[in-house]
Every structure is written in C-alpha cells, then in structure tokens.
C-alpha cells in the first residue's frame, strides 16, 4: 500500500517538477529511445534517439550541458560560451575544436556554420533566438527552445534543466541540482534575516537610461526568495532615470558588471549620477554578476554572492540613510540659467557687431 502511495505521489509530482512530456519509452539507459518534449515555445518535439551532435546557442544552456557532463555531445556553441570561463567550458571547447557559431543574439548567429555541423539537436534560447525558428524548420534541423535569458523565475531554470535531463535520462542529477539550489536559497535567506525587507534595485546596464531588473525576471525571483524586496515595480527589464530611482527609494543598489572592467562599470555608473543619490551602490564582481545574470547552474552561487555583497557594504556604511543634501540649489541653478542667457545674448550681440563689417 505504501509503495503504491509513493508511486502515485511521484507520478503526480513529476510533471510539476518537469513540465515536459516524456514518453514511456524514455529511460536512463543510452539505448536508442523516443523522447517527446514540449519546449519553452510550447512546441512538441520528438527525438527518435539520444542526440549526439548538439549545438548550444546560449551560455546558460552550454553551462547546463557541461554541468550535466554532456560536453562530449557538444559540437557547436555561441561566441559567449566559447570564452566562458566557468565549468571549464572555454578550455574544453578550444581543446576539442568545438565550433564557434556566433551570437549570442540571433542576428549574430551564423546559420551556415550550424548547417555545416549537421547537428542532431540545436538548443536555442526563447528570448534570443525565436526569429531563427523558421530557418531551422526550413532546413529540417531539430531545435528545442529553452527559456534561457527570458527565464522569469527559478522554476523556468528548472524547466530548462528538466528538458535536458529528460532527453539524456539524467533526472536524478537534475533533482540533485534543484535540491542544491533550494538549500542554498534557504540557507542564505536565514542569514539575510536581519536585512529582510531590504529594498533593492538591481542595475544590469547603462545605455539610453539605467536598465534595471523589474518584476517577472528571474532576478526578481532570486531577490524575493532571499527575503529582499525588488523596488523596480514594472514588468521585465526596463530603463529608468535618476529621478525614477529616487522615487523608487531603494535602500541599496546592486549593479552587475557590464562590458569592460569593473572600473569601467563604476565610471559608467558615476556618469549616470547614481552615486549622488546617497544610496550604497554595490558593483558585483564578474563572477557574481554572471551568477545573477545567467539563468543556469551558476544560479546556485547567487545567494552567497548577494549575501556577501550586502553584508560587506552595509557593515561598513550607514546604509539606510539617504545622503541627499538639504541645501537649496535654487541660487546656483539660477546663476547657471542666467549664465546661459547671458551667453546667448552676447552671441547675438557679437553677431550684430560682425554684421557691421562688410563680408
């Protein structure tokens, strides 16, 4: 009776944990078997056998493949994966002459290189590669779309891992990963108890505004799982200005490292005026930034990185006090305005003087 109950529970829970359809023929052996997958675009894909020539188009997907020890099947990766320092990816792909197929963004992917590789499976990112679906279908290339960069929560990351685990019969390894991540979050949520409810703003880039992670992003999910509050209240990734940030009133700003060095990121942030807000600004290291930005196995390290960053910053600063001045700037700004008007008037005057001379 107990055995039947456990079996029934497992049967009910499995589709919740892995929302993919798996045929009864699927098992953990390496023998040819037919697997039915429902991918992140809700497409139903049938794999007649375990794919042994795989192309990954996103760093988070490549990291998942390497995490599951499936690197021997990888024949092509995107450009970011090609120099990915984690999980020994960069050195492996170079040693084994894995092809760099361009990207990560769809318009930078070299489709011809993928065709040359004759892959049995292409793993693409729903957010970055959906426009390529028609091309893949036209050339009869089997493609499975994962959430990748458009993951909205840890559940979406588990979904992606679940699909790979299903294809290669590695459900146990995937379950272990999920336990590991859940435990890490539980552990650091306890450690962050003194800071529960801390209002955090995560800055992910500076171009045409200050780009922040809003609601329905996996960064938002990470923050809420750690008991922190994401003050960016609009959905998705969006740009704000200094005034909006002041209105959002975060207790702390966490900035991920952008292109270039950490110093360049700090300089770019300085140019936005964000440091003038008087709110502590933490610029994460490259490794910490990647763990927070890549919806893959690195996410397991995100709680510890966030914990370390917040505690080290808040212990050294009186963080929750805003340092905004109370002195009225009106006089200074009025002087600037007067200076502008004066220059304009002088300009016109000089023009009149020059006009007096014959040209």
């Amino acid at each position, binding site marked *: 009776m107990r055995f039947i109950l456990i079996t029934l529970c497992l049967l009910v829970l499995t589709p919740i944990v892995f929302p993919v359809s798996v045929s009864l023929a699927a098992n953990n052996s390496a023998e040819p078997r037919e697997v039915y997958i429902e991918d992140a675009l809700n497409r139903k894909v049938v794999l007649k056998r375990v794919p042994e020539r795989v192309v990954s188009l996103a760093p988070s997907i490549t990291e998942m493949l390497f995490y599951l020890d499936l690197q021997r099947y990888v024949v092509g990766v995107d450009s970011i994966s090609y120099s990915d320092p984690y999980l020994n990816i960069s050195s492996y792909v170079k040693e084994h002459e894995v092809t760099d197929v361009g990207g990560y963004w769809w318009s930078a992917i070299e489709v011809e290189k993928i065709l040359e590789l004759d892959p049995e499976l292409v793993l693409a990112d729903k957010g970055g590669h959906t426009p390529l679906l028609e091309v893949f279908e036209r050339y009869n290339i089997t493609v499975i779309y994962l959430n990748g960069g458009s993951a909205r929560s840890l559940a979406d990351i588990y979904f992606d891992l679940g699909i790979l685990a299903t294809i290669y019969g590695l459900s146990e390894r995937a379950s272990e990963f999920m336990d590991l991540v859940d435990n890490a979050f539980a552990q650091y949520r306890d450690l962050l108890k003194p800071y529960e409810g801390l209002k955090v703003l995560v800055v992910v880039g500076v171009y045409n505004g200050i780009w922040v992670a809003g609601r329905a992003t996996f960064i938002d999910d990470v923050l809420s799982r750690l008991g922190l509050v994401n003050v960016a209240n609009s959905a998705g990734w969006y740009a704000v200005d200094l005034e909006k940030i002041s209105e959002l009133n975060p207790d702390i700003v966490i900035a991920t490292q952008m292109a270039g060095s950490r110093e360049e990121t700090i300089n770019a942030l300085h140019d936005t005026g964000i440091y003038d807000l008087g709110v502590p600004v933490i610029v994460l290291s490259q490794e910490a930034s990647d763990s927070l930005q890549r919806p893959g196995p690195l996410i397991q390290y995100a709680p510890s990185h966030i914990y370390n960053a917040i505690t080290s910053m808040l212990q050294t600063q009186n963080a929750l006090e805003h340092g905004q001045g109370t002195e009225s700037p009106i006089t200074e*700004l009025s002087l*600037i305005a007067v200076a502008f008007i004066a220059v304009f008037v002088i300009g016109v005057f000089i023009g009149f003087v020059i006009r007096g001379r014959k040209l």
Partner: protein
Amino acid sequence: MLASMAARLHYSRIALGVILVAVLSALLICLIYWSVHYELPNPMDTLIVRYRFNRVLSAVTAGLVLGIAGASLQGCLKNPLVDHYILGVGSGALFAVLLSILVYGYSLSIAPIAAMAGGLLALSLSIFIAESIGGTDASYVLAGLGVNALFSGLSIMLTYMVAMRYAFAIYFLVGSFTLASDKYYLTMLVSAFILLASYPILAKPLNAVLLGDEHAKQLGYNPRIYRFLAVVSAGIASSLIVSCFGIIGFIGLVSPHISRFLIKSVDHRVVIPLSGLVGAILLLLTDDFVRLILSDYVGEIPTGAIVSIFGAPFFLTLLLTRFRRGLR
C-alpha cells in the same frame, strides 16, 4: 498705394513675429519652471531639482540649436525638406564620435571636435551630391538618404565594437536626455553661441538668397559666402549637440515650418528665432512626456525616438504635399 499696403503688411507680420517671440519666450520660461517643479516629492530635494534642471536645460538648448540650424539650412539651401538629420549631419557626427571613442576612448574634448568633423563631412557630401544631380528638393532628400545610410551603417558597425568598452555608445544611436549632466554645458554653450552669433549676420542675407543668387548679388550680398556661413554654422552646432545627446531628428525640420505657418512669412529675421523657440518648446514637451508620463508605464524611452514618431509623419506629409503640387 499697393507698395504702401505691402509695406504695412510686411511690418505687421514682423510685429506679429516679435510679439510671438516674446509670447513663446514667456511660455518657454513657464514650461521650464513647471518641468523642474512638477510634483517635486520634496521641495528641498537638491538632487532631483539639479537632475531635472540639467535635463530641462539640455532639452531646451538642444531644441533651440536644432530649430535655428533647421531654419538656416532650409533658408540657405532654399529647400523646406531639409534639416541636419535629413542631410546626414547627425549620422556623420555620430560615426566620427564612435570612431574617436574607438581610438581614444570617450573624451569630452575629443568627441565634440570629431563630431564637428564628421558632421561637416557628411553635410558637404550631401550638398555636393545633391547639387551634382540637379539641386532640386528631391535631390537633397535623396542625397541625404544615401549619406545617412552610409554613415548609419558605419555607426552601427562601430557601435558593436565600441559598446564592449563603452556602454554609453548605444545611447548615441537614438537621442536621449536621460543622462544629461552639467559636463555638457560647455559644448551646449559653444553650439548655441555659434548659431546665435550667426543669426544677425545671416538673417537678412538669407532673405536675399531666397530670391535667387542674382537678386542677392544685386542687393549687395555674396550668396556663396552667406550660404557657406549658414551651412558651416548649422553643421557645427548640430554636430556638437549630437556629440552630447545622440541623434535627434526632425526637430530642425518641423520647427521652421511651424514658425512660418505662425507668422505667414518667410522672413528669416523672425523665422530663425521663432524656429529656435518652437524647437526648444517641442523638445522640452517631448522630453517631459517621456519623463513624466511614459516612464511610469514603459520605462525611459529615448526622446529621439518619440520625436521621430511625430516628426516622420510630418515630413512625409510635407513631401506628399509638395509632390502633389508638382514641385520637384
């Protein structure tokens, strides 16, 4: 009798223009005050007042410069379909700025100089090509289209290379005042100064140039010199604005048309300052719309994109109207 009536009408239009300039100046000052103080969370909030002031001042100066530059270019080229954006000055300046970033990194002293060089190069190319193929309205638009395409393509290519080192590079592709700060004051002032100083020199001669080169010469103006001065001052000033805030199109096209419509005259003595004021008001209103309304729903959209959404249909309407009238 007819001559005195015409003279009276002319002076009444000038008087109307002067009154309009005064009214629009007052409106602009009120708008600036409102933009800085709108729903200020805390009247003593120094940082926000400073940020808003920088942003508002930037939008107003950029609008003023682009409006005056547009009026000067349309006047000296005798073509109502041109502005710095249509003639490729914006994309030329952008290309040069990106190239300078690639070589030297971003520098507040190098970027404006590069922008001037790039903007003037693109402008000369457009004018040279347009004059080579007939010098009609359509020639300028087509030449500008080609030059724009060339420099836009080069700029996008450079953006890919530069953005890895300098994240702000993408910010130049579409103009925005989100990152406005006092570090651009000098460039903005130089840009406005050049155009305002050129106004008294160019306003009257441009009226003569509009009548044709022969008439201009008879009136004692050398059209080549004044055309050259107008093109160079407008090119330099608008390139400097591009080096600060990126490409903002169509303000220079729309503002002179609105000004001419308001006073029913093409007299540059009134059209140029009026166009500057209209440009400043339009750009400030657009930026306010982005900052105060759109940002609550979709985040910060670059002001340059919103200006294009309104400006491009205006340009197309203008183009269609002129072609329907049989003007080439």
